[in-house]
């Protein structure tokens, strides 16, 4: 499922810490595949072996600083998306993960330091750039995305974006 920039996403938060690297999102030994269900089967395996069985479609992954640091493997956001994660919220992201997620149509939102608790219900409003913690009644402002990223997310990812536009246009 692709989420568009206009959409408001609601879901339960799974909260993890800082510097979650791509090896912990999907270990390198599982990345050589085009079978996305194989990726989802091993998502976050070395971080939280229970996550795969607990995650429900639409749930929201929440992390601290520098989420997705390490390798360029697009299999990391693909594994999360295939497992049912609807959006990833973090203080901030490592840059390749951030780009990869937008490119495959997985929304990512940067909100700086936060106190979101595990299991809490969140509402993510991509268009307004807001993350609302419904349990704590707190709202976090999201860092704005460049126009080109919003356009890619709106199209449902970079594949669809280029199907429509055919090219990036000029500088």
């Amino acid at each position, binding site marked *: 499922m692709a989420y568009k920039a206009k959409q408001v996403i609601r879901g339960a938060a799974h909260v993890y810490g800082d510097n979650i690297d791509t090896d912990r999102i999907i270990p390198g*030994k599982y990345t*050589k595949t*085009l079978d996305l269900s194989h990726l989802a089967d091993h998502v976050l395996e*070395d971080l939280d072996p229970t996550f795969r069985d607990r995650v429900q479609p639409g749930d929201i992954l929440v992390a601290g600083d*520098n989420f997705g640091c390490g390798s360029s493997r697009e299999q990391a956001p693909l594994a999360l998306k295939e497992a049912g994660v609807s959006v990833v919220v973090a203080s901030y992201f490592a840059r390749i993960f951030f780009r*990869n997620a937008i*490119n495959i149509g997985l929304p990512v939102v940067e909100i700086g330091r936060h106190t979101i608790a595990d299991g809490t219900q969140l509402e993510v409003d991509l268009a307004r750039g807001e993350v609302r913690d419904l349990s704590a009644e707190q709202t976090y402002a999201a860092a704005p995305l460049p126009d080109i990223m919003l356009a890619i997310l709106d199209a449902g990812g970079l594949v669809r974006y280029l199907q429509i536009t055919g090219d990036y246009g000029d*500088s």
Partner: protein
Amino acid sequence: MGHTIAEKIISRHAGRLVHAAEIAIVPIDGAMATDTTAPLAIKAFHEMGGRRVWDAGKMALVIDHAAPAPNERIANLHQMMREFSAEQHLPHFYDIGSGICHQLMVENGHVRPGDIFLGADSHTPTYGALGAFAVGVGSTDLAAAMLTGKTWLKVPHTIKIVLEGTLRPGITAKDVILRLVGDLGIAGATYDAVEFTGPVVARMTLASRMVLANMVAEMGAKTALIDTIGLDLDYPFDPIHPDPDAVYKAVYTFDVSELTHQIAVPHSPDSVVPLTQVAGQPIAMAFIGSCTNSRLEDLHAAAAVLRGRHIAPDVRMIVTAASRKIFNEALRDGTIATLSEAGASFITSGCGPCVGTHQGVPGDDEVVISSTNRNFRGRMGNPNARIFLASPAVVAATAVAGRIIDPADLQAR
């Protein structure tokens, strides 16, 4: 307002003057994908409606991450890459054993000073050693580049690092970059370009410059750019230097004269300590390889330690040269014989053990000392192993002693 090296290169490609934080759409001079990233990129390229790669001569595919294929699933992905290369008439397709992608791009001149290069691998900033703006991307970004010959990017802010003083004998670019990763932190340069200059850089070989540039990925940087001062290449090129009035996010001056051997301890490459703090730590496995440290000068450094010695009986040592060309040079000059007689096992040039794919997965609770760039939990294929990162000479000495040791402290032969 002057320009950093990154701003100069992007301005030249964008056809207008740009500064940090602007968005630019730029033509690229080259693109590369590996067997981890190419299959998804090929799939996305087809889904985008791609028929021909924008410029076959500028596109390279490399089978290095799981080479030779360890199972039928990966063998079929390799087959997909071979078929795509044949169908697209890609002149630069590198099959198993050719070497590690980043080494091949530099060794074969696919990337040159002043270029903008996209690589579907996070250690692509390695080409900053040439003064190229080289960025790691994922498969779909690469597919878009294969289709359009362009990419969009945000012009990065630059952190400038000036290396002054003189390295002590035996202390290498690896010790410098480990110390810098330790000081700046795993996210210390996120989204930024890291520019290196200064007299230490001016004296560095291309291989050592590649070590510096390679591990900016471990600070979260978008790319590295090393001043071309003192750079010696076997083809003519226009040097690139930053303007004296360029604007930097931060400037660090680091006098390397007192630097000692550095080691990253489990489970993060920014957990860096002087070797003396972990000396005596027993190890089970030693690995010299990867896009960080497996070039000829690295194999020479290991051989200098291992000549006339043998690795400890309860240690296994794995070595993989960065490319077939380097392996052949090391074969001709006797380095391979020295390492083999000391008990090292050789595997096909590639990435395997570093990325935990195959050929050298450690067992539970085993400790590994490695010349690579990452020691995240599970990195080498087993989340219950512990990985220490060091320079090739320290890895070799540690293999002999069976415990972490300064090469200078090995008993006289």
